[in-house]
């Protein structure tokens, strides 16, 4: 099976980090992609409902969270780079920074949810809010998972582990970069 590349993972072995992580990442991208297309379809069916819902969203808070996440991703990428130079301390500090920014993202998200809940806007209010809470909530669950993964790979910090953990974190980042404009900005 030598023609299959590195030990039979096939095309998956071209990607950084563990191949199974990429199975997870690709599944997630399809899931979020489908939800976002579904969201756009709901806009087509109920334009007024979506416009009203979007007008209640805070673009500055969403923008702040975008900045937090891209900065966090930047730190995680540096952590991988430093690990490959052998600078384990520097790598771990960057990773801790990435995780801390992940927590900051969740805090901002928490404020946002609390504000919406105070206005009586819940997951069953209407289809807009169902989709808002499903997509952003599912994304936030990935942020939580990502922080746990960053902690694990910071502890067991082989280069491959770091690449694997960072790949998951960048996927979380990537999803938000698509989600944010489609949910918040396309009004």
């Amino acid at each position, binding site marked *: *099976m030598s023609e*299959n590349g590195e*030990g*039979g*993972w096939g095309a*998956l072995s071209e990607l950084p980090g563990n*191949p*199974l992580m990429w*199975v*997870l990442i690709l*599944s997630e991208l*399809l*899931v979020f992609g*489908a*939800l976002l297309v*579904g969201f756009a379809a709901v806009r087509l069916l109920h334009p007024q409902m979506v416009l009203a819902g979007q007008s209640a969203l805070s673009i500055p808070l969403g923008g702040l969270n975008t900045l937090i996440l891209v900065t966090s991703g930047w730190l995680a990428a540096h952590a991988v780079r430093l690990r490959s130079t052998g600078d384990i301390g520097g790598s771990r500090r960057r990773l801790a920074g990435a995780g801390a920014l992940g927590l900051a993202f969740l805090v901002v998200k928490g404020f946002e949810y609390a504000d919406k809940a105070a206005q009586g806007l819940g*997951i*069953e209010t209407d*289809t807009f809010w*169902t*989709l808002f*809470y*499903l997509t952003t909530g599912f994304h936030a669950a990935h942020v939580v998972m990502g922080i746990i993964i960053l902690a694990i790979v910071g502890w067991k910090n082989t280069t491959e582990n770091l690449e694997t953990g960072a790949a998951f974190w960048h996927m979380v980042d990537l999803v938000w970069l698509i989600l944010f404009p489609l949910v918040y900005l396309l009004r």
Partner: protein
Amino acid sequence: MKYESQKVALYYFAGALGLFVAQVLFGVILGTIVVAPNTLSELLPFNIARMIHTNALIVWLLMGFFGCAYYLIPEESETELHSPKLAILQFWLFLIGAAAAVVGYLFRIHEGREFLEQPLWIKLAIVVVALMFLYNVTMTVLKGRKTAITNVLLLGLWGIAVFFLFSLYNPSNLILDKVFWWWVVHLWVEGVWELVMAAVLAFLMIKMTGVDREVVEKWLYVIIGLALFSGILGTGHHYYWIGMPAYWQWIGSVFSTLEVAPFFAMVVFTFMMVWKGGRTHPNKAALLWSLGCSVFAFFGAGVWGFLHTLAPINYVTHGTQVTAAHGHLAFYGAYVMLNIAMFTYAMPNLLKREPYNQVLNMWGFWVTSSGVTFMTFALTFAGVVQTHLQRVMGMGFMEVQDALGLFYWMRLGAGVATLVGVVLIVWSLAVPGGKRAGAAIAQPAE
């Protein structure tokens, strides 16, 4: 066969095949009742025959899984089974329990929840049987070589036992009853059973194609990853119309669409391995069943599942013959064919013979598969017509059913063909012909 204790699998294979015939026989009886409703209506009403049909299916598939595990685990773990005696005792307990349940059903003793009709004491007996089994195989795995295949198989088997515990919970609120009923039914067939399926297929691929274990085990992880990443939240496609919040329509639609992926990966996997292996294994029938399993599972569970899984479509097809069509092809492809593949592979080895009755066995494959396929098409057409008349036009249920008579006759014909095919399969496995293998017993690839 390398280990004497693998022989206990023969009990399970025999029991499973016997129940297989009974299951299909009751299916034919049910098909007859549908077209001639006065048949046996006093002696064996539809609901009793139906619970025997479905329960026999579940029990024989599980019995087959137990047999597969007893064959596979010593060979993978490279050690004798922890306790063959316990395995044989477990078999008789399970068989007697199943027989007692069926006799009870005939006397209207049951709990009346679909597929979980077993009386409480039978359910508890099943738990005991499962614990005996899990103890036996887990001890075997712990003392022997640990492979990805035994690891995944054990996880699947433990999952089967854990999720069965939800069958003991029956709240008086019908909504909650249904919610947790699906934790048994869905998380079995679209969750942990897929782990068993992938592990057994991986084992068969290693044995029959000669492809490296390394490669097979990587595919195994990809497949089970796809299966559980999609299948757990895919449960949502059962929560659309039973009193649950509307958000399940989104979750169920998206994740259960992805449930096609592991089945597609299994098709690519089996065909790639056979193609790459390039080795002609003498047991051609077992290879045919293995390839057939992945293909029929892809169509039955994957394609026919996807056909009606999106919430807006399910809104009109839910609870029609479309579901019945999907159920028949999916169970046949994924789990019936998996068991027969393993039986066909293992029985000559257990009986120390060259692969026997291959032609007859392959006839069984084609006749049964054609029967089930034709049945699926008949039920699909029936379901589409029913959906239109009943859900779009608003015609009454019985009026619509009367209009579907032709499809039900076709289904009965397909069912009879299936029964003939099953008899061929059982005959080919149970009545060994050909010569006993001498020193030149078919060696597994590994």
